[in-house]
């Protein structure tokens, strides 16, 4: 089979992967059809959705590729703003680290649908040779990540060429970017496969549950890491540069040996004239080792994809049930437990359960710069943590997926569903006030408001979640893009619900300089919002 022919045919399994991931979103897109207001819309939308699947995927890939280009170029900003040559090694290292993280995150989202092999079933029934079939599967895999990988490689190579004017440096950068992509895809594939295997194996093993939690935590922490690296390149880059170019310390040598800092050091060395030979040698040896590792990783990727297409990828273990008993709960708790199980078993939504960790990290990072627990910092920190908490209700709606079809047949009101999702998102935020109480033992609070404000914000988050979901259920949207815009609108309403009590506190404090009074004003605002939330819920 010709390569071009295989590339054309790979559209079929790729389209199936895309359709599946979009079908997962159906729950979110069609939540508006839950009530009696718009029943039946989904049947009309089905055809439209199918038609748009590939177009939407292309748009998605393009947006993600553009974002990847921006994040890969961000660390080079310090080179433009400061001394261009001095920051090169660390800019390259950071750029590679960020694109590694981001490519991996995106690939995990797509590959979860890919690793279950079903998309290839369509082609497997046709008289196509084994090798050709594997080639088609590999191409369909490449299609899901092509734009973003090519985009990041091009941006890194062009920026290096521009900053160094060295063909050798540019060539090494090309190699390093390619290695980076291979590593990112290999880790994503491994992660998706392990996650999927762990889920599909079934059973009620506690080890499986613990493993799943570890994977979720890894993913969440990775996102925080990427976020931090992206937001503070100017702060990290100069410190990193000093470390990379210091000869003496053993820790610096270890850093140079570590990917992607070895790549940064080698490329930097082609431009700097005063880099010691031993340093270049160490980094070069490390790079050669990483190249060999990338070759092995590529072989593993190809082998795994071939196995997925031939064997179905996952070995399922059937566990004999000892009994057929179930534990019934009150409907609200039953729904919460179902949401927890469904969302934690979907790689795309599982990560939201590490929100408490993320929120606490953000607050700890912000507060660590100050000697006392200032009220102003607490206001900013709780607000930022609150934004993360408001993502959860929408994620829980997405996680319903096609199962929503069944839920619609059960005697449960949308009011109870809203309450369950609002309670879950509020529960994830409770860690923030608790963490702040803990922090106040280490760092003295400037005033009692600093400790009480987060508790009031928790109530505001409950109201925001109720209003956000209620607004969401009242809308029927067609297509993913409209769904995203719709999400953003609701998110903005939620953000304002948190912002209003904070503004009320700030405004009354600036006019009266009375913390107790300001706190009372804030508490009053929060209670009014809660009443509004419950009113909206009852309507």
């Amino acid at each position, binding site marked *: 089979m010709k390569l071009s022919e295989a590339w054309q045919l790979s559209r079929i399994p790729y389209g199936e992967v895309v359709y599946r991931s979009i079908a997962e979103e159906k729950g979110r897109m069609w939540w508006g059809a839950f009530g009696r207001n718009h029943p039946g819309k989904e049947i009309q939308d089905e055809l439209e959705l199918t038609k748009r699947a590939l177009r939407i995927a292309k748009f998605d890939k393009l947006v993600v590729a553009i974002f990847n280009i921006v994040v890969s170029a961000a660390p080079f900003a310090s080179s433009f703003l400061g001394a261009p040559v001095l920051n090169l090694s660390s800019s390259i290292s950071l750029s590679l680290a960020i694109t590694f993280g981001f490519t991996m995150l995106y690939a995990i989202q797509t590959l979860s649908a890919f690793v279950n092999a079903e998309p290839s079933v369509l082609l497997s029934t046709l008289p196509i040779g084994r090798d050709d079939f594997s080639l088609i599967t590999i191409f369909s895999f490449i299609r899901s990540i092509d734009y973003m990988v090519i985009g990041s490689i091009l941006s890194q190579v062009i920026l290096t060429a521009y900053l160094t004017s060295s063909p050798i440096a540019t060539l090494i950068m090309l190699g390093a970017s390619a290695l980076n992509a291979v590593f990112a895809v290999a880790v994503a594939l491994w992660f998706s496969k392990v996650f999927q295997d762990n889920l599909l194996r079934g059973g009620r093993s506690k080890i499986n549950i613990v493993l799943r939690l570890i994977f979720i935590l890894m993913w969440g922490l990775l996102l925080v890491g990427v976020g931090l690296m992206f937001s503070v390149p100017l702060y990290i880059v100069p410190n990193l540069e000093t470390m990379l170019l210091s000869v003496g310390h053993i820790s610096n040598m270890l850093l140079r040996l570590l990917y992607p800092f070895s790549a940064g050091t080698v490329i930097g060395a082609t431009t700097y004239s005063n880099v010691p030979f031993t340093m270049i040698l160490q980094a070069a040896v490390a790079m050669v080792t990483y190249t060999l590792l990338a070759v092995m990783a590529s072989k593993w990727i190809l082998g795994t994809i071939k196995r997925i297409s031939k064997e179905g990828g996952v070995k399922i273990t059937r566990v004999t049930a000892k009994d057929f008993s179930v534990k*019934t709960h009150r409907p609200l708790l039953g729904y919460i437990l179902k949401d927890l199980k469904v969302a934690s078993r979907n790689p795309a939504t599982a990560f939201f359960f590490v929100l408490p960790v993320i929120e606490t990290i953000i607050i700890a990072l912000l507060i660590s710069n100050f000697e006392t627990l200032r009220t102003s910092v607490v206001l900013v920190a709780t607000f930022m943590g609150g934004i993360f908490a408001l993502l959860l209700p929408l994620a829980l709606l997405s996680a319903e997926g096609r199962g929503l079809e069944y839920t619609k047949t059960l005697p449960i009101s949308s009011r109870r569903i809203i309450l369950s999702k609002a309670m879950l998102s509020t529960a994830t935020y409770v860690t923030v006030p608790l963490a702040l109480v803990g922090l106040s033992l280490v760092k003295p609070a400037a005033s009692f408001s600093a400790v009480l404000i987060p508790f009031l914000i928790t109530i505001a988050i409950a109201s925001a979640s109720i209003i956000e979901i209620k607004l969401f259920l009242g809308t029927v949207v067609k297509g993913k893009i409209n769904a995203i815009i719709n999400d953003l609108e609701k998110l903005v309403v939620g953000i304002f619900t948190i912002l209003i009590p904070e503004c009320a506190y700030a405004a009354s404090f600036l006019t009266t300089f009375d913390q107790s009074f300001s706190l009372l004003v804030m508490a009053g605002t929060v209670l009014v919002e809660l009443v509004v939330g419950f009113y909206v819920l009852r309507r």
Partner: protein
Amino acid sequence: MQSGVSVATEPLIETFGLTKKFGSVRALTDLNLRVMPGEIYGLLGPNGAGKTTAIKTILGLLEPTSGWLKIAGFSPTKNLIEVKSKIGYVAENPIVYDSLSPRDFLEFVASIRKLNQAKTNATIAHLANAFDMTQYFDSPIATLSHGMKQKVALIASFIHQPPILLFDEALNGLDAKSSRIVKDLVSFQAQKGGAVLFSTHIMEVAEKICNRIGVIHQGKVIAEGTLEQLRGKTGGNDGTLEEVFLKLTHEEAEVADTSKMLREAFLENEIV
């Protein structure tokens, strides 16, 4: 055909002039149905005739464009929760939460339906044993075969022992043993005074388990009655349900022509 124990006079399912349009497409036209307690009503029709739309409208998942309906005395447009609590539903394609195991799923359904734990466990144990679920009860539903998923959906439809069962091609993908069990369960449902609306395009199923059959074609019930009554409407006293059906839908001549055309096309070619 089964003989139901129909004693009550109030129908458990009643629709009048039910019409459902999707844009310019008319999926149901003036549907009038009455399913009495103890009755197994077969909704028989070809693919795309409107069987699924009819069932979804009765369940309250779709709002009728015009007409009205009552389920056990309740209107789905006014008392949706009450209506849903009185119905056990199995969809044509078993749609359940794929990431949950059957145990997790049934636990969720039983909790939402506010069922008594001990009673529910006894019902689940009987049904799970009958459907040979031992090896599959703790596996993610995503890993189960179509038939197994259908069994999970069937158990979920029976756990609250509802007065009304709405089965949309519920035997799809089931093996012979499981099909037999479902037929028995449907029969028991009728014997204890419940109502079953059973949509199918398989004639044998309708012929064997239904008390009364409604032939639905292009969104309209074109004939209704027992098999004998339907035979009478086609002007004969014998013939299988398939023959009666083709006569009622005026497809007899068309099927004969198609069969002739295919015979000519396929018999000319030798098997390679």
